[in-house]
């Protein structure tokens, strides 16, 4: 079964991937390079001067604010990751192993996609009538006498941001997990059971190891989506949560494009390092 790769085949393959490669080159690599160049420009306080300087990076690494912002961002990434992983895994497990009929599986899977029928901003704003001071939950809380005052932590808080992350990003964890789980050979589970493995042991020694590529892909999604999010922190966090992306927005509002670009480059590097680490630990290609 040795396949001889002729130059013609190789040529054809190159041709096939060229549209996507070109699009990525122009619309992803190009802008990123421009941001990198911008990050070395000088910012005088009002003006951007095209002049090579390391000042933006020196300032970034010596400011105590950078650490605070990254801690906040990593905290948001970490908590969201844990919750979406548990939820995503459970949901995928239920769909794949507990349901028998394929139609029900697909129907319920599609149900999980319903929130994506509308724009992300609307998905977030839709929380306001639920969580607000005069929202449904607070009306209930006051009506039942659980609290005399409306619960303020529900909206414009970290809690609200997490809620939105979990609502939206669980699917990104669930979908790849669903995919890998569906491919698990049922014979392996039968064999484990025949050999006397308990349910927990099957889960721990058979299913989870086989799910690793799905977990890895889901993690890459969740990490990069949370680390780059600005909308939820702004709309549901009331801009009171200081993440890396918020600090970039503040700098951009004040026309400080070079320092803001430097912040962006470092954030990109951090996210790429995390993604690279995941890729080293798990062979994602296995799933493909």
């Amino acid at each position, binding site marked *: 079964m040795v396949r001889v790769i002729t130059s013609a085949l190789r040529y054809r393959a190159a041709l096939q991937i060229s549209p996507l490669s070109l699009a990525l080159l122009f619309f992803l690599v190009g802008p990123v390079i421009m941001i990198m160049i911008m990050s070395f420009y000088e*910012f005088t*306080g*009002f*003006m*951007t001067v095209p002049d090579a300087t390391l000042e933006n990076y020196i300032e970034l690494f010596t*400011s105590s*604010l950078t650490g*605070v*912002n990254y801690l*906040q961002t990593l905290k948001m990434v970490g908590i969201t990751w844990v919750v979406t992983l548990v939820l995503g895994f459970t949901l995928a497990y239920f769909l794949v192993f507990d349901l028998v009929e394929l139609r029900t599986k697909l129907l319920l899977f599609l149900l999980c996609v319903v929130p994506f029928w509308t724009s992300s901003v609307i998905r977030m704003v839709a929380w*306001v*009538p639920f969580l*607000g*001071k*005069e*929202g449904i939950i607070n009306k209930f809380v006051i009506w039942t006498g659980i609290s005399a005052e409306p619960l*303020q932590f529900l*909206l*414009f808080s970290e809690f609200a941001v997490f809620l939105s992350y979990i609502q939206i990003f669980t699917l990104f964890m669930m979908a790849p997990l669903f995919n890998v789980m569906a491919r698990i050979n049922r014979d392996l589970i039968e064999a484990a059971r025949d050999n006397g493995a308990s349910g927990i042991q099957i889960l721990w020694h058979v299913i989870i190891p086989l799910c690793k590529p799905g977990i890895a892909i889901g993690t890459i999604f969740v990490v990069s989506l949370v680390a780059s999010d600005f909308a939820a922190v*702004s*709309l549901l966090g*009331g*801009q*009171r*949560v*200081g993440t890396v992306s*918020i*600090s970039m927005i*503040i*700098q*951009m*509002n*004040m*026309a*400080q*494009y070079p320092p803001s670009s430097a912040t962006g480059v470092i954030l990109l590097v951090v996210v790429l390092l995390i993604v690279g680490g995941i890729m080293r630990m798990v062979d994602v290609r296995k799933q493909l």
Partner: protein
Amino acid sequence: MRKTSSDTSKTGVSRRSLLKGTAAVAGVAAATQLTGGFPTVWSQDIKDLTLRSTGGPWSHFQLLENMANEDLDFTVQLTPVGLDEIQKRGLTQTGSSDLFEPAYLQMKFFWPTGKFMPWDTTKLPEWDKVVDLYKAPGKIWPDAWFGQGQNPSTVSYTSGPDTNDFVEAGSTQWLTAHPVLHNADTLGIRPDLIGRPIDSWAELINPEFAGKAALVSFPTIGLMDAATAFEAAGEITYGDKGNMTQDEIDYSVERLIQLKNDGHWRALWSAFNESVQLMVNGEVVIQSMWSPAVTAVRAQGVPCIYQDLKEGYRSWTTGHVLPNHLEGKMIGAAYDYVTWYHTGRVGAMFARQGYYVVTPDNTRKVLPEAEWDFWYEGKPATVEIYDPFGNLMEKPGTIRDGGSYKNRMGRVAIWNSTMDENKYLTRRWAEFIAA
């Protein structure tokens, strides 16, 4: 397509008067075509031109675009984007538009780039009708307050046709920006939820409103509002709240963080609609607001007052800046457009929205007397007051909040500004957000 509705309604009179203005402007090439006195040749020539303008949603909307295309010989295309986006596009993609309408607080970012050319006041036929705020000595009326911070006249002039400096108001004929609109912001309150009179900026930081107050998230503006409150509460006296020293910034930010830790700030908002929703949903009962935002809250049946305060108003203004890439006839079209903006019809339309175009004398010629009295004189409405889109706003007998034009624009305590310590301020503000 945009032109279809306009061709029939063009009136020779208004066009001709505008063309007179253009004739002087359009540069050598265009001017030679006009020497025979055949405006039709000119209009044939500019018919295919499209003038693109990028500005805020408060001025870049369909109704204005339709009006422009009815009255002018070329096509006008308006693109509404947020204040931050106007800045981003203006500074980094200047070629993407033929006019930008930044706020004057952004002029220190725009003008020194050298990407824009000055307007020549001698070629702006309505320039003498523009209020004195944009001329020496920077007062809209002789008895008006000059205001702290960046009075518009201080960033309005440059020394020559190819310069990018700022010079004393009125010392040259070269304008950095051609003024478009101005208005004043103040505290918006929910009278039903507060239940007592409010008369000072100090109320913004009153512990009574802990968890019920909001702040603008734009760093300088949020900081200036807070500073106005700290000063009104007698905590500190600033040298210039619109241009603070590092010590003054430190004090203000420390206090902001303290208030944040006490749970004072319910939220920070960055867009018009967010400020409206915060009030409508009862999340917030006191925050600084734009006058039309207050109107928008009331339009949803929720009581809201644009509160006149004893310390005065925080004011802003916007202007058109002219990118360098324009040449010949396009420059002529740009001059035509900004001149048309000031001839009255546009002023009347914006008056009904609660804003002021900078040529009130011309606005008055078009705006019916009863509406003028309501919007500009602060008198009780004698007729039903409609907004430009035909929605009923006020019934007879009501008085506009904030009173007359003179009461608002004559009592500007502080101008939206960019401070000398811009960089330091931004970093400290980010610390407040992260605290």
